[in-house]
């Protein structure tokens, strides 16, 4: 058995767990909940082994020491690690707060991240490290960044759940906010799925990167008709989500999940993630950049977007601690913050160029 088999097992486990968690949310039987947790743990264990095995494989291919052979060096590996951190964080919360329903919101993020790997057809191969990445800073910088990203992802899902639970009217700004932003998120995902399908059918040349085909199958299609129809479909989809979003509220509302706990988890996740992100992501990143490139800060797109995300969470903390922002307002900031993090992480790699362009 090799690491890719185990990665496959964990991907399957998370997707199955997602379905069971959602079933659990709908029926509320504790046996179903225990099954969901068990499946998640199985997925987590096999993923842990898979990462360990990939570490060994990577060490052998790259002919280097253990510290440098951390398999977190490209988009594929970092997504895998992100999911691992996210599930770990979720399991900790599940045991601490003795509440499983939250799983129905975290496992989809894990599932989506893993599906995204296949949707974009990203390279899964093990490649030895380019010289710039051969540094002991790689391990700390990447590990800490992803721990922070995962806590931000948790804050995002609790924030979103809070908004779903607490918004009443369709005219309410925070209701419009969560339905529209979730809608855009899903539309982008669907559009990328279409890109993937058309890419697989049309382009046989392996040298052509899917990157340059982003949204070409739908929203940015060369054919005006396809493009127009896609935009209409997207708008209709978002409208439907806005129109029927309250149904989701009923589902969550039927469950014994206190909004205060959600608010608390949102704050705590960010309060842990922010210092970790500052230290591991920004400071260690700067020290490493200083050693490798001779500049600790060069306003490279990745750095700049990290700073923008950092500002968003700094704002969250100041608003909460100085102005007592809680509830809906805080939840909106947590959601926006994570959208920025996603862009920092994926958008910059896919759309912009710069020194951090290893992941593309």
């Amino acid at each position, binding site marked *: 058995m090799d690491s890719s088999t185990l990665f496959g097992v964990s991907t399957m486990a998370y997707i199955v767990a997602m379905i069971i968690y959602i079933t659990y949310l709908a029926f509320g039987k504790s046996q179903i909940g225990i099954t969901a947790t068990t499946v998640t743990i199985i997925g987590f264990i096999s993923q842990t082994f898979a990462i360990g095995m990939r570490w060994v494989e990577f060490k052998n291919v*790259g002919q280097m020491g253990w510290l440098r052979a951390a398999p977190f060096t490209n988009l594929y590996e970092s997504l895998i690690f992100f999911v691992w951190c996210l599930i770990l964080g979720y399991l900790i919360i599940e045991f601490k707060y003795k509440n499983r329903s939250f799983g129905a919101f975290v496992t989809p993020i894990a599932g989506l991240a893993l599906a995204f790997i296949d949707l974009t057809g990203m390279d899964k191969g093990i490649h030895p490290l380019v*010289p710039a990445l051969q540094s002991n800073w790689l391990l700390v910088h990447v590990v800490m960044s992803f721990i922070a990203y995962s806590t931000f992802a948790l804050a995002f899902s609790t924030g979103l759940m809070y908004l779903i639970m607490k918004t009443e009217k369709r005219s309410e700004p925070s209701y419009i906010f969560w339905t529209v932003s979730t809608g855009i998120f899903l539309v982008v995902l669907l559009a990328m799925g279409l890109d993937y399908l058309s890419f697989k059918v049309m382009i046989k040349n392996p040298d052509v990167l899917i990157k340059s085909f982003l949204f070409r199958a739908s929203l940015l299609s060369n054919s005006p008709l396809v493009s127009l129809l896609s935009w209409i479909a997207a708008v209709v989809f978002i409208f439907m989500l806005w129109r029927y979003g309250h149904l989701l509220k009923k589902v969550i509302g039927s469950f014994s999940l206190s909004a205060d706990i959600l608010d608390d988890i949102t704050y705590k996740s960010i309060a842990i993630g922010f210092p970790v992100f500052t230290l591991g992501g920004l400071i260690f990143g700067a020290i490493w950049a200083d050693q490798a490139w001779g500049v600790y800060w060069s306003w490279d797109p990745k750095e700049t977007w990290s700073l923008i995300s950092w500002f968003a969470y700094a704002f969250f903390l100041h608003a909460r601690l100085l102005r007592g922002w809680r509830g809906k307002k805080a939840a909106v900031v947590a959601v926006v913050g994570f959208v920025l993090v996603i862009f920092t992480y994926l958008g910059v790699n896919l759309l912009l160029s710069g020194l951090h362009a290893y992941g593309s």
Partner: protein
Amino acid sequence: MEKEKDKNITDKIWDLFASVKLAVVIFALISATSVVGTLLEQQAEPEKNVKVLVKMFGFDHETAHRVLGVLDSMHFTNMYHSWWFVAILLLFAANLIICSIDRLPRIVKLVKEPLKPLSEDHFKGFGIKKEVVLKGNPDKTKGAVSDAASKALGFHLTEVKEAHGYQLYSQKGNYTRLGVYITHFSILVILAGAVIGIFFGFKGFLNLPEGRPYSVAFARGSHMTDSAESERILGVLDTSAGNLSYAAKQLGLDEGTLRSKMRTYGIQPLGFLIRCDEFNVDFYGGTDMPKAYKSWLTVIKDGKEVLKKVIEVNNPLTYEGITFYQSSYGLIPGAGGNAIFRFKVSSKDGRAEVLDLKFGNTFAIPGTNLTGKIEDFSPAIGFDERTGRAFTYAEQLTNPAVYMNFFEGGNRKFGGWILKRYPETWKIPDGTVLEFAGIWGMQHTGLQVRKDPGVWVVYLGCIAMAFGLFTAFFMSHRKIWIKLVEEKNVTRVVVGASANKNRHAFEKKIDRMVGLLSKDREGGR
């Protein structure tokens, strides 16, 4: 509090700078402008950004040019160095400083003020409230309470006598309230470090050819071929081994004028000589994936070799505050004729010899009556899959090879390509092994050169930030008051406590303390 209308203009400006609102506006400004700055490639050729605009916004070429022109006039193509971006950063610093000055005295007072016993009413308002009744009067029970607090919380309680008993109280972590200010202060330190770097530092590059020492580096964006004068200065510097006063005399200038001219041309004197003895790329196995870029550097000061180091990416060389980073490499144009090819020749009988050859040289192969000649060279040789014909596939020394012919008594016996990276090509038909050991004098190493006396200030700021964040988020200010009230042979113990962060954890500890007391318990809750 002052009335709004009593405030004069200075107060109003002060209040503005002390407000979180301004901070939010500045965050938003930095973020919004930075978004534009990441979309446009900074300090790039205009054509590149025109392409970006065409691709992202679907402009036609002409519109894109016009839009770029407007953005360029607003400095968006080099925005992080523009006056207005620096102004925003300064505003940010001012905001941080004034915010801190505004709030610090109150916080310092809060931190330094010793805890006082509380009145009865205050006990009702605590987030953490416990009550328990113990056997015996307060004089007897207060010892047990102090012990329990010390065991469960690590608190040493101060004791005061009250009308019906005692009050015990203590606090911990009052200094953690300063964590926020340490964090804010650290940002200022980092900005100060950056400013030091801008004013007293230097950022440049140097394409250093193998074997030729340089005494200067070049500022980014400067071109060494800018003018005849800069060429002449460089030429003289080259012959004077970096000695500026000597070079100035040669040019008929005084040293100050020479220095200022050099500054105009972006030529930065190093104060010593740097030489690249060799540059080499290691590859992973049989692939063209680079494993390491290595430059063997030597620093020469006052005619003596003072430092030798092999630098790689992530492993630079620093001398006298100037750091050299491995950043790129390339072939020196037209250097092929002077390049030296090094071969380690091992003949069949086991004798070995090193030969340094040039293009076109004829040489005798030791231990045989063969002569060899280098007839052709390719920096990156590939062979056509069908015809087997050799071709060059890259303009770097990715897969260097020489074509050698071998002669005996003037007649060509055999010949072929010898590839540096492939030992199986080193053996010639008569059994001699010609190990292709190196090529010298054909490449330059591309070095990033930096002097930044502010970097240590930045690092200090980073350490302070880590420390500040840790105290601000993971440590808390905890206070506890315990009232012991005498009631007919028993003591009613009322506990009130607070923590500015992670109250839950503190409450758990207090529960443990109450649990420790419960062996003397009489009832109650």
